[in-house]
């Protein structure tokens, strides 16, 4: 048999499928133990020796140097979940791996992958519908506690779990203060409006929420005031150094006296600029570039706060929040230079404060929108990094809740309910998809199982009980029994309880998206039946230098 030769390795059919699925499986095993309130953290050390301690699935997978191509798909999956939803990065990986494992079994039983894929798609569609119609509740139905509880649920698996009451408050307050309703009536909660600053020292309980924006920079000269009330903020994106002509511009001087004039003029140009800015009424100047020492003096004399080398991202946000305009150049169309008072942003107070060993500048009471700053304190930098990640996740969760307003009960409740529903649904289909949907329904149980396992509880027993409850809920007619659809795991006591009442809540959005992502990823990998790894190209003859 003649063969087309390929440079490199080629794997085909069942071999490649099994290999892929094994890779995915082992990746999911790595993150498995970090799921749920009883999950533990991972310590990751890179070749330089930098340490990351984390519980966040996306961060773990990003740090691991995953080589297998199929496993890489899963890593991307968790990144997408992180970007789109922010939370649930671990569960999405576990779910995808489980779906694949079961699909592989079906393929071995001679069911064509395409039927499995279409079965999975069907199951996904039904699940999404079921969550939206049956399981989700709007925040109004649950009450104000809902937000706090959702934040707590997302934190429970993290290092801050023990202090979730404290942090949930911070996170919810922060998000509610930055909430906006745009012209279309949509609620928007920009995560970026919440700024997180980390300073080691003190204890994590001393983290605070500041109503305003803080930047990690002190004022540029010690002679400046530390507090400015009724601040008018100028955001500047050009150098306040001595003026210099562009490279390549030469000045030919006929009379030596003029040389001196050029020198004077260089300084005067900057001085005029500074004066124009101050004369426009500015008393806080934020500059993303340098400010020369001699220019600082003018600010000191007029008792303004000037801060140099403010980060671009910070400057942009401050400009947005205070209504300031970032000024790139003072030039106007007439060829003159001027600084309009309308460029200034307004805030009620700007002040500098020492936190730990560093000076921070706080901007409070901004005109346009309210920005929030969370100052995190804690034992050391690794600790702070992990808290920051957890806070970010929780912020995302709150954002979802505020924007979509739909919640579901957590602790495996949704998964089990879906599983029961899909089981019944599968039986109504006469096609091959039936088998795939049944497997899909089984696969969903991996989440509550892992939760129970991580808490060292009897998973089989608990899952069986939960299925009974949910089955009863779905079959029942009376209201009381229907409430059982919120039954989930109580991992501390190893019992089943109503997680809605216990306050274990997750945004419905996050659940739906993670189901979607996991299914899509599983399908992507399932479609592969041939893998060609090209051999690296041979080095060409050494190039001439």
């Amino acid at each position, binding site marked *: 048999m003649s063969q087309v030769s390929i440079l490199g390795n080629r794997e085909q059919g069942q071999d490649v499928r*099994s*290999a892929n699925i*094994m890779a995915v499986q*082992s990746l999911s095993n790595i993150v498995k*133990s970090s799921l749920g*309130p009883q*999950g533990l*953290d*991972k*310590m*990751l*050390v*890179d070749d330089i020796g*930098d340490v990351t*301690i984390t519980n966040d699935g996306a961060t773990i997978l*990003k*740090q691991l*140097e*995953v080589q*297998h191509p199929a*496993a890489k798909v899963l890593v*991307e999956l*968790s990144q997408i979940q*992180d*970007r789109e939803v922010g939370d649930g990065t671990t569960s999405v990986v576990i779910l995808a791996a489980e779906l694949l494992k079961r699909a592989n079994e079906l393929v071995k039983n001679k069911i064509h992958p395409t039927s499995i894929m279409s079965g999975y798609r069907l199951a996904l569609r039904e699940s999404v519908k079921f969550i939206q119609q049956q399981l989700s509740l709007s925040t109004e139905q649950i009450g104000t506690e809902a937000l706090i509880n959702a934040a707590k649920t997302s934190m429970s698996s993290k*290092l801050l*779990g*023990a*202090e979730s009451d404290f942090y949930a408050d911070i996170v919810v307050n922060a998000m509610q203060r930055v909430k906006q309703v745009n012209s279309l009536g949509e609620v928007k909660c920009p995560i970026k409006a919440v700024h997180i600053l980390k300073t*080691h*020292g*003190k*204890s*994590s*309980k001393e983290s605070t929420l500041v109503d305003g924006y803080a930047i990690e920079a002190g004022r540029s000269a010690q*002679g400046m005031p530390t507090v400015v009330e009724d601040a008018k903020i100028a955001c500047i994106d050009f150098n306040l*150094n001595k003026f*210099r*002509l562009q*490279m390549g*511009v*030469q*000045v030919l*001087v006929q009379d*030596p*006296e003029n*040389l001196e004039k050029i*020198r004077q003029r260089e300084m005067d140009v900057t001085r005029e600029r500074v004066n124009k800015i101050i004369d426009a009424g500015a008393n806080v100047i934020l500059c993303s570039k340098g400010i020369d020492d*001699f220019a*600082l*003096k003018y600010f000191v004399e007029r008792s303004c706060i000037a801060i140099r080398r403010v980060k*671009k991202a910070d400057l*942009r946000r401050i400009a947005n929040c205070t209504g300031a305009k970032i000024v*790139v150049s003072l030039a106007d169309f007439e060829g003159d230079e001027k600084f309009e008072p309308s460029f200034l942003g307004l805030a009620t107070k700007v002040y500098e404060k020492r936190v730990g060993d560093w000076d921070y500048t706080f901007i409070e009471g901004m005109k346009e929108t309210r920005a929030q700053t969370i100052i995190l304190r804690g*034992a*050391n930098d*690794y600790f702070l990094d*992990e808290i920051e990640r957890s806070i970010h996740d929780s912020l995302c969760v709150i954002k979802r809740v505020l924007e979509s307003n739909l919640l579901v009960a957590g602790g495996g409740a949704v998964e089990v309910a879906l599983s029961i529903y899909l089981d019944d649904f599968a039986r109504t289909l006469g096609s091959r998809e039936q088998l795939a949907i049944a497997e899909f329904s089984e696969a969903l149980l991996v989440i509550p199982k892992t939760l129970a396992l991580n*808490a*060292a509880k009897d998973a089989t027993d608990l899952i069986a009980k939960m299925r009974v409850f949910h089955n009863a809920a779905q079959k029942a007619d009376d209201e009381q029994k229907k409430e059982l659809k919120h039954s989930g795991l109580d991992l501390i006591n190893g019992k089943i309880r109503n997680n809605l009442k216990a306050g274990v809540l997750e945004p419905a959005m996050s659940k739906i998206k993670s189901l979607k992502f996991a299914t899509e990823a599983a399908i992507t990998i399932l479609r592969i039946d041939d893998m060609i790894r090209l051999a690296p190209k041979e080095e060409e003859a050494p190039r001439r230098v």
Partner: protein
Amino acid sequence: MSNRAPVYILNQSAKREQGKNAQAANIKAARAVSDIVRTTLGPKSMLKMLLDPMGGIVLTNDGNAILREIDVAHPAAKSMIELARAQDEEVGDGTTSVIILAGEILTAVEGFLEREIHPTVIVSAYFKALEEIVRLTETLGEPIDVKNDADLFKIVSSCIGTKFSSKWGSLIVDLAVKAVKTVYKKDGEHVEIDVKRYAKVEKIPGGLLEDCVVLDGVMFNKDVTHPGMRRIIKNPRVVLLDCPLEYKKGESMTNMEFTKEEDFKKALAMEEDEVRKCCEDILRVKPDVVITEKGVSDIAQHYLLKFGNCSVIRRARKTDNNRIARVTGATIVNRPEELQESDVGTKCGLFEVRKIGDDYFSFMVECEDPTACSIILRGASKDVLNEIERNLHDALGVARNVMLNPKLIPGGGAVEMELSCRLLEFAQNIEGAQQWPFKALASALEVIPRTLAQNCGADVVRVLTELRAKHAVAGEGLHFGIDGNSGKIADMRESNVWDPLAVKQQTFKTAIESACMLLRIDDIVSGIKKQRKEAAGTRFANDEEDTFGDQRDG
């Protein structure tokens, strides 16, 4: 599938430790770190001599300084070392105790992990205990009056008691208290004590240790630029500049093309004129001392000396200049032509250049109520000086914390023992598996009095039992701790051993929180390479690079 090559998911060079192994390894590493510094706790502590790779020697018993020099490989150990740093930056003292405590707290857990108690249960018990500790210490704290020098003195001296420099008695304490009082600045509600910026420690090898002083002004390592200038001036008028007093070319590219000989001469004369004009501007305000951060040309020196009889100091550091501005009341000026009478500093009583050892030092002392100061340390060798500086740094930290939060709690292990007893009582009311780790934490606190007793060679078991008995009833034996010199039980009120509340609280918080973090780890993956920058999922890619627009005039 059995006959195929294994599937590699991770880089093969990556090492993994999982589950129990990882936990055990972390605990071991933490204990190893705490064993290093164990002997440096208390008044009978020993110094460590560390040789760095460059061959330099560090002699110290400061926990942070020791750990900073040690190169550890284990990630958990690294995290411990970070603790010492955090403690040092936040409060400045208690670096040794925090490490010892964290090590002990982790060790206490070992048994539970073997007995299959879930780490998250332990962690939540620990957090609960921390809350209780903070609450208890708050009630135990005794307020003092910071205006009262004697009180302040007492407390700083108990902190310094464990250090190398305690052999010189109250010397370092005096320095620290005085320095902190100097830089204390109250601005409405806002109290500022910026030791880092305004209390500068200058080390000059040679001389006697007794010569250490806090100046009522500042000192810096510079001499006047010209031998003819005055070296002692009473009540000088001081001008501070941060511009060069020499001819400097402009920023823009300028070329000179001369066509006539006169032009060249003119250009040279211009340069001279420029400097002279500068000097005239300065002399207008009749200064006695001119200090600049930049250079001073010979010709400028000449003018200033000849026409104004000024003493000039060049290339002063920015930080020095800031301090001088604070003690003299002068404003730092950049353009001489903008000098005003109000910019001149007159609050300094004496300007003097002294020769100490081989170097010249300028002093600006006898200032009217100075808000900055220099602390001069003298001593036999550099190593000794370095150690004294570290001690002083601790003392400054303590003094600062007491001024900011004037509450004290008894030292010498008294607080730890008291907390331990109270927590044990509290533990009785806790339900479930959390009770055990809670109790274990309470016992772990005893490590501080135990180590104190060990280090002074006391009969550890007997002393500790006795101490525990004293603390048995709440509130009664609160002040009993271990006298670190004799190893006996003593009333800390009598032997005057106190710790600032802020330092102690910080110690507990840092130690417990970091222990919790290490406990939650069940998997260590090491040897992974840094991801390439443009990895697919970077959250804030290219956030910094973009600009707002074109920057043509930058």
